[in-house]
């Protein structure tokens, strides 16, 4: 009961990678969603996870978040099993949430404290102060009283990031966070992600945008059920590997264009 009431995060092995996957395989009813995937990601890294629809990006995220067990293989976070951690935050796609739900921005950010508090404990003054700070940090403090469904897509993403901060997340998984956002909102999100990198938070972002993946991340991971490559964009986004991921569609002709797209994303770094 003690463990339930005040739950501490699993002690992190400082020397261990934030994520280590060893031959992770996930099967659903005979179809293979992830096939023999192995990689390591260091604390504080920002990695883009790229691949076609059905490539297993969400499956991988669910394994990392500790809500799905691999059929075989092993995945550890900071040396421990994912279920032991309450420092993994999932930032959902906009379509994933019910926009009519009666919660305001402050309520949503406060949800991040749920796991830290444990059962039967109510949030105290320290929790509430932390929620205000997290909202300040991502620039949604002035929206605190607004219903979540009334916000724009970019504002919602920032609220979910604030919730991850309130959760004291060390590892953040973001599913298509920038889809449908205008350039200013995207810049704002990248500014926040830079801040999180400075705090040592590891961030994995699933994206379809190869250009941004190449320019705005430390490394890219190319996934099509199997791990086709992980590393610098120049090494991974080769016509051969992209061909294996996307088929012939994205071969030679589109490639330079794809990589040239997304300069808009990193104004801060270029200037």
């Amino acid at each position, binding site marked *: 009961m003690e463990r339930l009431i005040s739950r501490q995060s699993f002690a992190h092995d400082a020397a261990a990678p934030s994520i280590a996957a060893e031959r992770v395989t996930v099967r659903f009813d005979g179809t293979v969603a992830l096939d023999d995937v192995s990689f390591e990601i260091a604390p504080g890294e920002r990695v883009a996870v790229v691949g076609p629809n059905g490539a297993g990006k969400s499956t991988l995220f669910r394994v990392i978040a500790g809500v799905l067990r691999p059929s075989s293989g092993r995945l550890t976070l900071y040396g421990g099993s994912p279920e032991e951690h309450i420092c993994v935050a999932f930032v959902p796609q906009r379509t994933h949430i019910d926009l009519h739900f009666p*919660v305001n921005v402050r309520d949503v950010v406060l*949800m991040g404290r749920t796991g830290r508090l444990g059962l039967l404990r*109510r949030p105290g003054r320290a929790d509430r102060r932390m929620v205000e700070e997290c909202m300040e940090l991502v620039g949604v403090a002035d929206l605190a009283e607004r219903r979540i469904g009334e916000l724009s897509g970019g504002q919602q993403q920032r609220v979910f990031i604030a919730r991850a901060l309130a959760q004291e997340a060390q590892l953040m998984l973001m599913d298509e966070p920038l889809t449908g956002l205008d350039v200013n909102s995207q810049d704002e999100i990248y500014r926040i992600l830079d801040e999180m990198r400075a705090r040592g938070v590891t961030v994995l972002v699933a994206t379809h945008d190869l250009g941004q993946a190449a320019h705005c991340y430390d490394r890219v991971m190319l996934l099509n059920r199997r791990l086709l490559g992980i590393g610098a964009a120049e090494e991974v986004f080769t016509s051969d590997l992209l061909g294996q991921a996307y088929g012939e569609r994205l071969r030679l002709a589109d490639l330079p264009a794809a990589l040239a797209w997304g300069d808009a994303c990193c104004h801060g770094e270029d200037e």
Partner: protein
Amino acid sequence: MPSFMDLLLQPLSHPFMVRGLIAAVLVGVVCAILGAYVVLRGMAFLGDALAHSILPGVAIGYLIGGGARGPLFWWGMAAGIVTALGIGAISRQGEIKEDTAIGVIFAGMLALGVALISTTRSYSVDLAHFMFGDVLGVSSGDLVLTAVFGALVLAIVFAFYKEFLVYAFDPLLAATLRVPTRFFRYLLLVMLAVTIVISLQTVGVALMVAMLVTPAATALLLTRRLPAMMGLSAALGAFSAIAGLYLSYYVNVASGAAIVLIATALFVLAFVVAPGRGVLWRLVSRDAYHRT
């Protein structure tokens, strides 16, 4: 001509009316608060099915007890909890879609209940009581059970408020926050079963879902945060119960139906005039938009 106060007080001279009012208000409040989660999680069909699935349990108790009303509560409770756990288990295995599974169990259990009750001589009267309730037949013992179990349900809703909120908002988030989601899913189903059983005599099996869903849906249209939604839902549930019983007394319509009709009228009203979200509001703001 009687004054308004006379109209209000006159029915209270009958003890069965007083007991009925207390029962209806208790049930109205508990259903309306738990109903907030039923509405937000999209469990209306499940709630309806669960209510109908209690019928065979009640019928067996009725047959065994030779028509005694006392033990029916416990038979209904047992049937409700077994069905709640069964639905929880079936919808987890994923071979059959959840709403299909619920539909199969729901109709099958209802048929079993009707078949069992049809073996009694007073078939149609008994069936009508179970299907549509008999709030004016509530005994003092029933009232005590309703109050105790209703208070238990509300205490659980209050104690696990933050967990239920996260679970209802986003089960995946709840899982990553290490909230035991399976436990809370089953707990919600069992609480639903208990609430349905204590409401059985007030509104009956067939109209149960209205008590769970309608006040909460009305409140959702008019509020912005969950505590306010629950509070308003409870007030609407209590008001519908009282107004429904008075309507039933003076117009001589079935009490369960009268309660549900009041609740439905309030919903329609909110649906039309809710500020910011009602139909009327949208029409007006569209006009304003066209004029500019």
